[in-house]
């Protein structure tokens, strides 16, 4: 084996970027499935949603998945920073005249900026809900069988209720901005991940490309639709 080894090589960093990124795409699907319940969760006062939230924070297999997700986010972030620093060093003198839009898409050239916006969104998002659920003081709710669960549903809808939260409109705007950045990040990232691990074929690459584009539009759009729904049904 070559002396530099897999952990140091540029391709290894790309494999890690692709693996963590594609894993996080799976996480998005799971998270979205959970959030979609918010469309109808009001019918039983959020009981079913809260039971689901309790399951997601206590069931051992889900807990393992969640630790994998934290790890993937941090690794994707650290790897991205290392790659970006190396890439900047690879061109110490910039061109006086550049026309990058003639040969590459906007999102592919701005992954670090988009990723940073997604990161800022993620930090505020976790503070608003994840932290509250795990460590915050939130109201309890009694289920039909008598067990008590944390009433995450009330926290979520209150957050996007302009009458209860004076910053609800700002929260909505930042949420939409985060989803917007996520969409553009995925626009390049989804298919790029497959290319990085060498999954490319004359017959299947077009399908991966289309799936990536569809994923990058549909997922952020559905996430956004849920908060827009919550905001305007309470406004």
């Amino acid at each position, binding site marked *: 084996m070559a*002396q530099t080894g897999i952990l140091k090589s*540029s*391709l290894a960093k790309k494999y890690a970027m692709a693996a963590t990124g594609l894993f996080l795409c799976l996480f998005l699907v799971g998270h979205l499935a959970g959030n979609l319940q918010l469309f109808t969760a009001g019918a039983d006062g959020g009981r079913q949603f809260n039971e689901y939230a309790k399951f997601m924070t206590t069931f051992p297999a889900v807990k393992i998945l969640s630790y994998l997700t934290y790890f993937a986010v941090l690794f994707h972030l650290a790897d991205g920073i290392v790659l970006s620093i190396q890439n900047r060093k*690879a061109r110490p003198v910039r061109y*006086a005249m550049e026309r*990058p839009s003639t*040969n590459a*898409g906007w999102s592919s050239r701005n992954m670090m900026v988009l990723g940073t916006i997604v990161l800022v969104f993620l930090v505020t998002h976790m503070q608003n809900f994840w932290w509250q659920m795990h460590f915050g003081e939130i109201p309890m709710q009694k289920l039909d069988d008598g067990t008590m669960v944390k009433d995450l549903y009330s926290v979520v809808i209150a957050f996007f209720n302009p009458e209860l939260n004076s910053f609800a409109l700002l929260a909505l705007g930042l949420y939409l901005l985060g989803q917007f950045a996520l969409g553009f990040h995925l626009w390049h990232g989804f298919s790029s991940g497959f290319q990085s691990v*060498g999954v490319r074929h004359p017959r299947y690459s077009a399908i991966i490309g289309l799936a990536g584009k569809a994923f990058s539009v549909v997922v952020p759009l559905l996430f956004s639709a849920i908060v827009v729904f919550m905001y305007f049904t309470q406004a």
Partner: protein
Amino acid sequence: MDFTLKIWRQDGPQDEGRMETYPISDITGDMSFLEMMDVLNDKIIRDGQDPVAFDHDCREGICGMCSMFINGEAHGPNRKTTTCQLHMRSFKDGDTIYIEPWRAAAFPVVKDLAVDRSAFDRIIQSGGYVSVNSSGNPLDANAIPVPKDDADEAFNAATCIGCGACVATCKNASAMLFVSAKVSQLALLPQGQPERMNRVQRMVDQMDKEGFGNCTNTGACEVECPKGISLDNIARMNRDYLKSQVTGE
């Protein structure tokens, strides 16, 4: 036609360098870009000054020697065209044209527009070959059947002229398109199989050592490549390197 040229001048590797402006007139549309540079240098020499250094050799679009980042694009505005095959009719009378050297840490400027591309040579030396036993009766390459599709694809990869436009145009100054073409042209042929895994490891490791950036799959290299080398090659190299690391000792 008349042009205003903004050209990068740098006296040597240690010099800081600067953009300088040169007006040029009486250029015809049928002149190649390099012929226009020759006219400019002729004028500069007659004025008793130092001519602009730039690389060129065959002027037929096949040697990979000419370079130049013209108006923000490697080899200028035309696709699948080297600088020597770019003609002045591709510009409008009165245009201002920016002419810069390839910019990459791994391609240090020698003088003006000429850069040192020997990093590519060292990558080839690290594994871009097939070892042949020259005992006196080497096996004729044509004796081994090669599927037509594989031969065509290997040939397409082999059309890479190593000019470095991929590095110059990549926002990360990555050499992935060049290295993957050189890996692929041998990986696709039966003669390349015995050293396939070893080769990809050595060439990627040498590429990293030279200080090229990391590929982020923007695809700019494929667009600007004068020979139309495909991103398929990069995917193949990604695949082979992964395999070599997983199955290697």
